C-alpha cells in the first residue's frame, strides 16, 4: 500500500535544468539570434504587424538593432519599442509561453524560452533594461539577474526582481551580459566567430534587412543577401502561393524555385571555395526569418523518397519555401530556429511541391551535359531577378532538351611493340602518325576489307 504522502512524484523543474541543460542544445550564434528575433518582433508589431509575404512593403528603416561584442561583455540594444512593465511582470520572464499570452502578430518568437536561454548561455551577470511608452510618455525599468545568486536562492522562488531605471535614449531594450561563460568568452575572442556572425545575419535576416531594418555588429551595419533567381529566355522560376487553415487560423505558404546560377561544367568536387555550391539548396523561411539555409540534406528531401542525394552537379539550384501566419506556433519552427520540425504536418504537406521543383532541376542538369555549350548560351539569356520580383507561376520552366539517341560504343585497347606500330604508321604514309590514328586506320582498313560498307 502506498502511503498517502507518497502518492505524488515530484516533477517540478529545477532552475539548474534551465541554466545548465537547455543551453546545451543551442549554439551561441543562435542564442544571439533569439535576442535579435525579439527585437524584430517588437519592430514588426510597431510597424503594423502585417502578414509577412514577399509582396509586403512594410518599411523597417526606422528600426535599429546594435550588437556589441567584447572579450568580457556582450550587449544588444534596439529602438524597437521596449517591453512594457505589464509584459515583464506577466510574460517576458516566464519560462515557457503561458496559454493566455496574447499572440503577437506574425512574430518569430513562439516558445517563451529564447531570451532566458540566450542570456544564460552568454554569462552570469545580466542586466535587462527597457524603456517603453506608457500613457504617452517614456517609462523604464530594469531586471538585473545574478545567475549564481538566483540558483542559490532555491527552486521555490523563480521570480526576478524588477527595479526602477533611467530612460534609455530611445524606446527599446538593452541587454548587457558580463561575467561571460567560458564558451562565450572563447568565441568572442575569435575574429572568425564575429565575421561568421555577420555572414549569418546577412543571410538569415535577408528579408528584414531588405525592408530597411538596420542590424549592426561592432558599429558596422550589415548588408543583407540579395536572394535572386534567374528569369528570362526559356527559364522561369516557380512562384506559387497557397493558403491553409489550421486550428481556425490561416497559414500562408509560398514556394519559389529555379536557377540561381548556371550549373557547373565540371561536377567533380573541387578544393576551391565554390560560392555557388555554398548557396545552392533549399531555404525555409518562417515568419520572415530564414531558419534553414542552403540545405542539401534529407531535411529538405534530398536522398529521401526516391529523391537523389545532393550532388555538386545540382549546384545553381535555389528553392525557398516561405511559411507565415499570425500564430507562429503553427509554423514548422524548432525551438532553436535553426532547422525545421520535420514532423510538422504543414511542412510534410508541402514537401512534394519542393520535390517536384528539385526534380525538374535534376533532370535539366542531367540532359544539359549533352549540349553544354548550347545550354550555357541559353542560360545566359536568363537574368537575375530578386525573389520579390519573380512572376507568379505554378511550376519551374527550364529548357526542354531532347536526350540524344546514343549509339552504343565499343572501346578497343591493345598493345604492340612500338617499332611495329611505327612501321605500320610509315606504311600508312606518315611515320609521325599518332598511335591512336594508327589503330583507327588499321580498324578501318580491316573493316573495309572484311566487312565492306556499313
Amino acid at each position, binding site marked *: 500500500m502506498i502511503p498517502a504522502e507518497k502518492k505524488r512524484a515530484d516533477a517540478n523543474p529545477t532552475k539548474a535544468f534551465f541554466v545548465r541543460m537547455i543551453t546545451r542544445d543551442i549554439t551561441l550564434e543562435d542564442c544571439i539570434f533569439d535576442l535579435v528575433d525579439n527585437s524584430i518582433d517588437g519592430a514588426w508589431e510597431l510597424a503594423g504587424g502585417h502578414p509577412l509575404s514577399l509582396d509586403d512593403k512594410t518599411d523597417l528603416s526606422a528600426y535599429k538593432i546594435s550588437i556589441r561584442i567584447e572579450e568580457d561583455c556582450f550587449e544588444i540594444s534596439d529602438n524597437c519599442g521596449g517591453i512594457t512593465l505589464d509584459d515583464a511582470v506577466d510574460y517576458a520572464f516566464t519560462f515557457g509561453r503561458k496559454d493566455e499570452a496574447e499572440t503577437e502578430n506574425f512574430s518569430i518568437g513562439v516558445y517563451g524560452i529564447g531570451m532566458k536561454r540566450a542570456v544564460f548561455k552568454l554569462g552570469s551577470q545580466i542586466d535587462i533594461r527597457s524603456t517603453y511608452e506608457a500613457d504617452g510618455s517614456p517609462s523604464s525599468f530594469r531586471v538585473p539577474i545574478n545567475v549564481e545568486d538566483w540558483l542559490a536562492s532555491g527552486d521555490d522562488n523563480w521570480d526576478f526582481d524588477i527595479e526602477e531605471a533611467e530612460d534609455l535614449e530611445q524606446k527599446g531594450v538593452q541587454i548587457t551580459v558580463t561575467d561571460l561563460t*567560458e564558451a562565450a568568452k*572563447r*568565441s568572442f*575572442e*575569435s*575574429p*572568425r*566567430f564575429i*565575421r*561568421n556572425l555577420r*555572414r549569418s545575419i546577412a543571410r538569415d535576416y535577408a528579408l528584414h534587412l531588405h525592408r530597411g531594418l538596420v542590424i549592426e555588429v561592432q558599429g558596422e551595419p550589415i548588408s543583407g543577401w540579395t536572394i535572386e533567381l534567374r528569369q528570362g529566355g526559356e527559364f522561369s522560376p516557380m512562384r506559387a502561393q497557397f493558403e491553409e487553415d489550421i486550428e481556425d487560423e490561416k497559414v500562408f505558404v509560398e514556394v519559389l524555385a529555379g536557377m540561381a546560377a548556371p550549373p557547373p561544367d565540371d561536377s567533380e568536387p573541387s*578544393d*576551391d*571555395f565554390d560560392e555557388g555550391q555554398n548557396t545552392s539548396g533549399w531555404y525555409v523561411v518562417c515568419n520572415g526569418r530564414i531558419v534553414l539555409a542552403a540545405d542539401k540534406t534529407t531535411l529538405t528531401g534530398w536522398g529521401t523518397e526516391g529523391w537523389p542525394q545532393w550532388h555538386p552537379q545540382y549546384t545553381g539550384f535555389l528553392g525557398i519555401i516561405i511559411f507565415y501566419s499570425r500564430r507562429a506556433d503553427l509554423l514548422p519552427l524548432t525551438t532553436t530556429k535553426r532547422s525545421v520540425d520535420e514532423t510538422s504536418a504543414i511542412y510534410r504537406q508541402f514537401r512534394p511541391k519542393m520535390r517536384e521543383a528539385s526534380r525538374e532541376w535534376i533532370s535539366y542538369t542531367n540532359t544539359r551535359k549533352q549540349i553544354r555549350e548550347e545550354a550555357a548560351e541559353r542560360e545566359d539569356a536568363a537574368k537575375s531577378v530578386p525573389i520579390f520580383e519573380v512572376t507568379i507561376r505554378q511550376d519551374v520552366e527550364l529548357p526542354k532538351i531532347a536526350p540524344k539517341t546514343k549509339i552504343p560504343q565499343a572501346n578497343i585497347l591493345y598493345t604492340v611493340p612500338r617499332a611495329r606500330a611505327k612501321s605500320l604508321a610509315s606504311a600508312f604514309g606518315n611515320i609521325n602518325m599518332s598511335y591512336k590514328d594508327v589503330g583507327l586506320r588499321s580498324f578501318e582498313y580491316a573493316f573495309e576489307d572484311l566487312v565492306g560498307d556499313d
Partner: protein
Amino acid sequence: MASFDSVNYSIRPSKSVQRAIVFQGLRRIFEVMDLGNAIYVGFGSIWFTDFVQAHKLLDIDDMVSIEANEIGFRRATFNKTYRTISVMEGRASVRLPDILELEGYSARPWVVWLDYDSALDEEVVDDMQWVLSNAPPNSIVLFTVSATQNAYGKKPIQRPKRIRALLGDVVQDDLSKDDCMKETLPKTLADLMMDFLKSEVADTARPGGFIEAFKLPYLDSVAMVTLGGILPAKGAAAAARALVADEGWTGIVGETIEAPPMTLREITTLQAELPAVANLTRERIQELGFDLHERQVRSFQKYYKYLPSFAEIIA
C-alpha cells in the same frame, strides 16, 4: 632556392631591426612569465642568428633547428653555434611532432619561431595550426612569411581569392584587390593572419587563450610580416595580457619597418643627431651632406637603437 644560397640574411637591416624587437619583447615576456626551462625551436639555417640571441638574451640552452634542405642540413650541422643545438632534417610539418615527442619537451614551454622565406601557403597554414594546438602551455609562437604581392597571384584580382583559400572565414567578404597591392598587402596579410591565429586558438578552446604580442611588417628588398603571440597557461594569462597592453610594448608596429641599407659613416652622422625630440627631416639629412627617402628617415629615427652595424672584414 634556399635562403642561405641567395643572401647572408644577417645583413638585412630591417630583418635585424625586426629580430631585435622580437627578442626585446621575448625578454620582457620572460620577466613576467615563468619560462626558465624553455626550449627554442626555429629555422636556424646556417647562420643561427636567432639561436645566438635566444641563448644570450633569453638564457635558453636546449634548441632545435629544422632544416629541410639536404645540403643545408649538413652545413647547419657543421655551423651550429652551440653544443646544445640539435639540427633536425626535414619539413617542419614532419619534424615538429617529433620534437614534441622528445623526452620532457611536451612539458616545457616552447619559444617557436617559424621564420619562412616563402609566402603563406597551405603548408605554412598547417604548420601554424599544428603549433597553435600542440605547443605546451606558456609557449610563445612566431611566424614570418613573405608578403610579396605576386606570390599571392600575378594579377591583383586573383589575390583576395588566394588569401581566402588559405585563411578561410576570417577573411572579410569584401576583401578587395586594393587591399592586396604591393603597398597594402603586408598590412592586410598581417591583420588577417593575426585574426587567423586568434580564431584558431579560440576555436580549439586553449585554456589560456592567445595573446597578440608581435605584429611586425618589414621590408628589405622584399616585404615580410612577422606575427606572434603568447599561449599562456591559464594562471599566467593576466600578467602576460597586462604586459602587452602596456603603452611601452614595442612588439606591434603600424608602419612597415624599412631600415635603409646605410654606410657606417651615414649611420654615425645621423646617430649624432639623436635622440631628438623633433622629427628628423629629409632637409636636415641633405644639410648633413647626403639624402634618404622620408619614410627611411622616419624608420631610422624610430629604430636606430636596433640597427646593426655592418663592416666587411678583409681577411
